[in-house]
């Protein structure tokens, strides 16, 4: 048995300084954790005020500005399930002109970090698409497509691709379900046609054109015989 050695107890001035630091730190922590779900205006203001400290040390699980905190963002989904569809698996589908579909996540173990990251990327796109902030999903689609174009043959890169962010709402298998089947048990949250434009003098650009669902398009009208 060995004797334990004690360090010198802190002096009064040290105790005062440490106590004050602890109080300020824990107050910041309490505010950011307490603001993860439906924050008040006061909480939003305090979160903004503390953000240089709390964001730098990642003490705040939310990545978005505090005025976007309703509903809770994917990264702060500590509830695990809400019973709604937005906690189900999100998947990215890239379909080439010849009909081949690449799936992200694909054959990844369900507990793997990579599968969770790709799921989160889909959740982020869906979260912003639901708020009608199309710039975010469009930019994510552009990044995914740019990466795809750099990895395929030149001929394939010259063909447009069709990118979808889908969410599984039924018992569909993410690896084997047919994306063209309307009854496959998936919802399309964002879809876009993407192509590489090399017509200008500079480096080729990746163009993203969002597809609009039929329900949001103008209904077809019978105009009769035009001749």
């Amino acid at each position, binding site marked *: 048995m060995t*004797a*334990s*050695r*004690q*360090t010198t*107890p*802190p002096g009064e001035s040290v*105790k005062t300084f*440490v*106590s004050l630091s*602890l109080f300020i*730190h*824990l107050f910041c*922590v309490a505010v950011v*954790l*307490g603001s*993860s*779900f*439906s924050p008040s205006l006061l909480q939003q203001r305090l979160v903004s005020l503390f953000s240089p400290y709390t*964001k*730098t*040390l*990642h*003490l705040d*699980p939310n*990545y*978005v500005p505090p005025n*976007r905190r309703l509903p*809770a963002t*994917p*990264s*702060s*989904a*500590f*509830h*695990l*399930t*809400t*019973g709604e569809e937005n906690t*189900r*698996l999100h998947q990215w589908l890239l379909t080439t002109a010849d009909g081949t579909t690449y799936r992200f996540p694909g054959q990844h173990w*369900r*507990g*793997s*970090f*990579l599968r969770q*990251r790709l799921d*989160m*990327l889909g959740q982020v796109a869906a979260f*912003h698409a639901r708020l009608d*902030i199309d*710039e*975010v999903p469009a930019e994510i689609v*552009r*990044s995914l497509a*740019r*990466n795809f174009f750099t990895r395929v043959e030149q001929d394939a890169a010259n063909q447009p691709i069709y990118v979808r962010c889908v969410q*599984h709402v039924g*018992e569909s298998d*993410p690896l084997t379900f047919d994306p063209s089947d309307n009854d496959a048990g998936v919802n399309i949250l964002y879809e876009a046609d993407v192509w590489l434009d090399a017509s200008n003098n500079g480096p080729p650009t990746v163009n993203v054109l969002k597809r609009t669902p039929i329900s949001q398009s103008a209904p077809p009208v019978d105009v009769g015989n035009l001749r």
Partner: protein
Amino acid sequence: MNIAVAYSKFSQPLIGAVGMGWNRFWFQQRGNWQLALLTRLVGVFALVWLASFSFELTEMFGASGWLSRESVQQVLTDGDLTQPVPGFSHLFLLESNFSIWITHIVGMIILLLVAWGVAPRISTTAGFIIVLCYVHRAPMVTNQFEAILCMLFLYLSVGSLCVDFRDRNALSWTSNVATRLIQVHLCGFYVLIATSKLGSPVWWTGEAAWYLITDVQHRLVDLAVLTSSPFLMNGITHLWLLTELLFPVLIWNRHTRPLMLLLVTISWIWTAFLTGLVAYSLLMFAANLVFVTRDAAGDKK
């Protein structure tokens, strides 16, 4: 005047008691074994987490990766691309795949040193900075795991700067401050977890367990046989939520602490099986070790 005297007589002992309680809570002497163990565990978790980027490293962080600088900026700045990307990360500065790989390997070596317990004062702080750089590079693909990992790393790195965790026989008040901070912050997370669940009707109606069991894309094991009994589903949901609600209160009492640790251990195993959040569940289990006292660990020296 009498009121002032009465108030003074009442308040002075109260303030004195609060002050003594505060000092006893934060500034008592404590051994290093919990923090030494936790540092190594956190090092292992961080190493596995960082290594998981290796499979798709340049696909994610490369110049034309999935998480391009533009897409991260778009998400974090509300679409205002004139604003700088908040947070710091060396990965924003790297263009070539070679340089990304070199820094990635250096980061893994540093976290290996943390897990191994080599030069903890330097390696723990350096490891925390590495983890923060990866988190800041793409915060939108982080989840609960990274929030807990950064919390633990912060207090362990601050604690390791003040005391050498390898000295098992030393008692110090700085070890106690680091341990208490982890305990209090962990309780804050349990409050967040419980209140987030209370915000969803399925946790009130007792259907949450059913929803998780029937989520075929996330679950690790098929427990659909349990769903035949709605009472069982309701009971599991209520006990699960009750455990997380009571944890921040009952964990401080030495008589109820073993029961709470047992219940949360079961709930984290359950969480891993039903949600696929294995690393998060294991990390929470490891973080709960900070409440295990020396007596409970079987060392009664």
